C-alpha cells in the first residue's frame, strides 16, 4: 500500500479499541440544555431571544456577529428558562441559554429543503453560514470562512480529514462507516462551492474498514481515498496537507496559500444535512470513552447536553474520576466539572482515574532533543519554552514560537515531563499582546 505521512510527529498508543466497534447511538435528551453562544473561533454570537420564549429545534437563538462568526441554534424544542452565566468548557462561567425541552423535539417550520444542484456557490455558502456549520474536528473554525478564499487565491484541491489522529476518539471513524453517503454528498457540495474536481480523503491505516468502505463508495464520484501511516498530529491541517499532497503551508500562512481547503468528514455530513434537509448544526457525534467509563460509546448528542448526562448513558463511572477531558487526550481541554455542556467542537469526553495518569514532577531539561525530533513544525520546543520561562519575548518570537500548532507532541515525549506546550502557548500570548501594544 502506498502510505504517505509527514515529517515529525509520533505515535502514541491509540487506545481506540474502547469504542471503535460501538455503532453510533442516539443520546436521549437531558432535562435541560445549556447552549453557550461562544462555540466557535471568532466573535461569539449575540443572544437574540428572551427568558420565557418558546423555541423550536433549529431556531436561531443567537445571531452571528461579524464575518468570522456563525449563528447558534436551539438543539430541541422547549422553553428558555434562563439566560445566565454557566460554566463553559473554557473553564469559566460564560453567558448561556438554558432550554428546558418539551419532549416533542419539533423542528422549526421555516427550515427549507434544497437541492444543491439548483443553487449556486454563493447561495450554498450562505446556507452553510446560516446553519452554523463549524469545523467538527474540534477546532470549530466557521466553515463558510474557509470556503471563501480571498480574490486571487486559486484553490485546486479539497482535502477531507478522516484521520482522527487523536488517541481514544472514534467519532469520525464511526461516521465514515455509518454515514458514508452523507459524507460523500457533502464532499460533492463542497466541490461545487469551490469549483474544483480533486478531492482527497485522508484516512489512517488503523481504520482499515473505513478505508475499504469509502474507497468502494467514493469510486463512482471520482473522490480519492488516501491511506496514511498512523502518525500524530496528522489531523492538523498543515500536516494533513503535507501528508496528502506534499505541499507545505508557508510560515504564518493558511492552507489556501498552497491551494488547499481542508474540511473534516463530520463537517461534510453536517453540510449535506444542512442543504438537503435544511437542518442547522444542532447535534454531533461524540466519543465517550476512557478507562474511567464502564461502557464506552459513540453518542449522537444534542448540542448543550451536559457531560454528566452523556456519562449516564454510558454506564457511569468506573471509579473516582481524576481527569475529565473534552476532546482528545493530546489537544483536548481538561474540564473542571461534569456539569459543563457539550458544544459544537466536543469530539469526545474522556475520563481518567488516578491510576491511569502518569504523575511525575517535572525535572530539568536533559537536552535529549526528543521534542525537537517530534515537532511537526520543526521548531525547538525546549528553547522556546526556556525563553517563555524567562519571559524573553523577542527571543521566543525569533525562534518562530508563533508557528506552534500546540499539538502536544513535545510535552508527550519529554522525559522530564516539562510543560512545554503550556510554556509556548503562554509566550505566544505575550508575543501577540506585545504586537497589539506597538
Amino acid at each position, binding site marked *: 500500500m502506498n502510505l504517505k505521512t509527514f515529517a515529525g510527529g509520533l505515535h502514541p498508543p491509540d487506545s481506540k479499541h474502547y469504542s471503535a466497534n460501538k455503532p453510533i447511538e442516539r443520546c436521549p435528551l437531558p432535562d435541560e440544555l445549556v447552549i453557550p453562544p461562544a462555540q466557535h473561533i471568532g466573535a461569539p454570537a449575540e443572544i437574540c431571544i428572551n427568558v420565557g420564549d418558546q423555541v423550536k429545534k433549529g431556531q436561531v437563538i443567537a445571531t452571528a456577529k461579524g464575518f468570522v462568526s456563525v449563528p447558534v441554534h436551539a438543539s430541541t424544542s422547549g422553553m428558555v428558562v434562563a439566560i445566565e452565566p454557566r460554566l463553559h468548557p*473554557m*473553564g*469559566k462561567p460564560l453567558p448561556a441559554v438554558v432550554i428546558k425541552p418539551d419532549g416533542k423535539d419539533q423542528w422549526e417550520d421555516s427550515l427549507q429543503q434544497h437541492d444543491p444542484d439548483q443553487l449556486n456557490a454563493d447561495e450554498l455558502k450562505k446556507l452553510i453560514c446560516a446553519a452554523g456549520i463549524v469545523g467538527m474536528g474540534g477546532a470549530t473554525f466557521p466553515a463558510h470562512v474557509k470556503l471563501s478564499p480571498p480574490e486571487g487565491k486559486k484553490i485546486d484541491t479539497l482535502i477531507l480529514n478522516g484521520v482522527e489522529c487523536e488517541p481514544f476518539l472514534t467519532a469520525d471513524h464511526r461516521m465514515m462507516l455509518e454515514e458514508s453517503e452523507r459524507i460523500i454528498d457533502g464532499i460533492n457540495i463542497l466541490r461545487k462551492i469551490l469549483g474544483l474536481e480533486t478531492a482527497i480523503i485522508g484516512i489512517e491505516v488503523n481504520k482499515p474498514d473505513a478505508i475499504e468502505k469509502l474507497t468502494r463508495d467514493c469510486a463512482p464520484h471520482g473522490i480519492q481515498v488516501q491511506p496514511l501511516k498512523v502518525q500524530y498530529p496528522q489531523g492538523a491541517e498543515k500536516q494533513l496537507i503535507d501528508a496528502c499532497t506534499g505541499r507545505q503551508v508557508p510560515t504564518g500562512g493558511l492552507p489556501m496559500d498552497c491551494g488547499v481547503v481542508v474540511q473534516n468528514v463530520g463537517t461534510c455530513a453536517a453540510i449535506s444535512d444542512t442543504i438537503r434537509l435544511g437542518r442547522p448544526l444542532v447535534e454531533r457525534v461524540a466519543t465517550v470513552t476512557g478507562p474511567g467509563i464502564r461502557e464506552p460509546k459513540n453518542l449522537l448528542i444534542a448540542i448543550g447536553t451536559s457531560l454528566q448526562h452523556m456519562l449516564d448513558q454510558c454506564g457511569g463511572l468506573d471509579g473516582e474520576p481524576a481527569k475529565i477531558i473534552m476532546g482528545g487526550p493530546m489537544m483536548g481541554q*481538561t474540564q*473542571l466539572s461534569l456539569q459543563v455542556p457539550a458544544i459544537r467542537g466536543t469530539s469526545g469526553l474522556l475520563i481518567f482515574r488516578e491510576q491511569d495518569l502518569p*504523575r511525575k514532577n*517535572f525535572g530539568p531539561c536533559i537536552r535529549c532533543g526528543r521534542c525537537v525530533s517530534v515537532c511537526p513544525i520543526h521548531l525547538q520546543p525546549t528553547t522556546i519554552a526556556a525563553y*517563555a*520561562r524567562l519571559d524573553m519575548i523577542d527571543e521566543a518570537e525569533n525562534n518562530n514560537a508563533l508557528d506552534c500548532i500546540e499539538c502536544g507532541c513535545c510535552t508527550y515525549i519529554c522525559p522530564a515531563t516539562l*510543560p512545554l506546550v*503550556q*510554556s509556548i*502557548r*503562554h509566550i505566544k*500570548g505575550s508575543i501577540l499582546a506585545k504586537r497589539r501594544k506597538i
Partner: protein
Amino acid sequence: MFAAILSLGGIGLVAATALGVAAKKFAVEIDPRELAILEVLPGANCGACGYPGCSGYAKGVAEGKALPTACSPGGAEVIEAIASVLGIEAVTFEPQVAVVACQGDNQKAKVKYRYLGLTDCNAAQKLADGPKTCPSGCLGLGTCERTCPFDAIEMTSENLAVINRDKCTGCEKCVAVCPRQVIRMTPRKVTTHVLCNSHDKGALIRGYCQIGCIGCHICNKTVPGAFVIENFLAHTNYEKLDELEDIELAVTKCPTKCIRDFSSGYPAGSSFVPTRNDAA
C-alpha cells in the same frame, strides 16, 4: 638619560596636545545637570520611572521630559536631591509600599484544580482563571517574587507572596505583573491593612477561604471612619491618613482575622513569617 626624558616627554607632549585639541574640537555637549541627577539616583535601573534605566531617566529629567518625582524607589530623599539639582521646590511625596492583599495560602484557601504546569501566575491564570477557587486571591506561583528588582518579595512555604516592607521601594513592578491585581500600593505610614481582594459576598467567600473579608462592617463599627467597605470588601481609608487613630483596635475585632497590623514588619499571629528564604 636626557634622550629618555626628552623622547618620552616628547611623546607625552604630542599625545597631550593631540588630546587637548581633540577635546576642544570634538567636544560633545552633555548637560551637567544630567550627570548630577544620575549621581543622586539609586542606580538600581529598575525602570519604575518608565525609562530603561537610571541614566535614561536622568537625561529625561534634565531635558524636562520626565517628572522629577518619578523615581519612587529613591523616595523623598532622591526627589529632594533632584529638585535641588534642578533648583526647584521639592514636592511633598508620600512614600508608598506594596501590600499583598491576600492571606489565602495553600492551607487557608480552597484549590479549584491541581495545577501541574509552568511556574508562572500569568500562565496559570489563563487556565480556567487560575487554580484557586477564589477569583482574586494570590496564586502563589511567585511571578512577583522573580520580578522584584529589590528582592523584597518572598514566598511562604505555603505559597503566598509576602512583601518585606524594609526592602520594598514602591517601584510597582509587582503590581504590573500580578494577573489578579492582588498587590496594592499603600502609603508607608499606614500599617493596618485589610488583606483580602475578593469582592464576593461573605457566604461565598466562607466557602473557599478561611481568612477572607466578608464585608461584615465590624471594623468600621469599631473604629468609625477608618475603613471603607465597597462591594463586600473593606479597605483602610487611605484618604484620611491623619485620622486613623486607634485603627489597631479593628485588628482584634475582625472575625476572620483578615485585618493585620504591619507596624513591626511581618504581623504576628499570622502565617506570614516567610520560611522559604533560600528558595531557588
